[in-house]
């Protein structure tokens, strides 16, 4: 398995690969988060990015529920993604 590829299989058995862009642990929530992309873009060339909570204990992803968590992730993406790495 590649170090940066996440594979998700839905209930219908469809598997899709996503490239992991960032992993985070937030002090406030004490949760881990995965930020990833399927490398698709809209018509304007804007990359689609997704984020989920990663539960290490049972190796499952959960939906992010609060605006605060989303806002923080967005802030970090803004800070980092245009640095030309």
């Amino acid at each position, binding site marked *: 398995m590649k*170090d940066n590829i996440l594979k998700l*299989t839905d209930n219908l058995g469809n598997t899709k690969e996503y490239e992991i862009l960032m992993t985070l642990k937030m002090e406030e929530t004490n949760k881990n988060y995965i930020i990833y992309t399927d490398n698709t873009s809209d018509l304007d060339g804007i990359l689609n990015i997704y984020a989920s909570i990663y539960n290490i204990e049972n190796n499952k992803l959960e939906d992010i529920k609060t605006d605060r968590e989303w806002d923080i992730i967005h802030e970090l993406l803004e800070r980092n993604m245009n640095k030309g790495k």
Partner: protein
Amino acid sequence: MMFEDILYATKDGLLIVGAIAKKKIAAFKLNRKFSVENMRDVQMPPQVRTSCYVDLYELSRRKFGDAIANFSRILERKFIGKDLTYFYKNIKTLKIKDLVGRVKTNILGSYYVGHNEIILYNDYLKSIYHELFHMASSCYRDDVYYSGFSQNGEHDIGRGLNEGYTELLTRRYFGGFVDFVPAYEEEVRIAKYIEKIVGQFKMESCYLRANLIGLIRELRFYLTETEVTDLITDIDKMHYLNNSDNSQDYSSLLHLEYLKNIYFTIFRAYARKLCFEIEDRIVMESAIDTEIKKFVEEDYIFSDIDGVVKEVISIEDFYDIFDEELDKNNMRNSRYY
């Protein structure tokens, strides 16, 4: 490496640790509606699973490990075991949060007794040993936070003296390791003079055992209960005045009044101590002048910030106080306790 470590503090100081891919992205859209609730299988790369276990504070321990090890070595060499009870207890679970360069503040660092946590804001080398001393002298019991000579509970007392003495010890034992930023200069000076009365060994022991009562007991040999209480609270008031946001003027009348009260009380305590030592023949009368000069240490006390101490007290004041105490004939049988 595909990922590099990141450590961030958001605008409100929230700490985030993680890893970021080396991928250039010009523009993005974060899809908040995308749901993973119906995913039946997740295959996560092993590297990601491992990195998620990184302890937020482990990163700090790796960075500050040398300073902590150095601090531990010095303390174990310089102090007896009984004085290090709180140090041994707290060092095991100490947390250090590294916010250096991430939060705009003039504060170098802070120690939080309740969390046993040091937070470093600026240039950690200048403040970590000071904060480690706070850690080594702190405990929480009976709803009161004790840290050195400071007590915070229903009533707060001793903070000014505590900061001064913490800084004094930091310079004494770690002055050779780092250049210090001037901090708490007045509190350091006052703490040094109190230590001259009580004695270094006793005062250091009281400090590390968070034993303000013990220090008060030592001072009560030479001062009344009211004089001791007033001394400690005047130091607190001066400290709060020095550290309030809009207080840059050391020559304010209130500040001068506190300083005057503090130094007069300290001089009075030493004058009484000297009287007892003369009575006990520990000090010969011929040596009085030498002892007074040694205690007052003119070059030190009057080389303060803006020459403020000179405005409130002089060595002549000390001689007047001493003569007054000698005349009162306050000898051993009528000590202050």
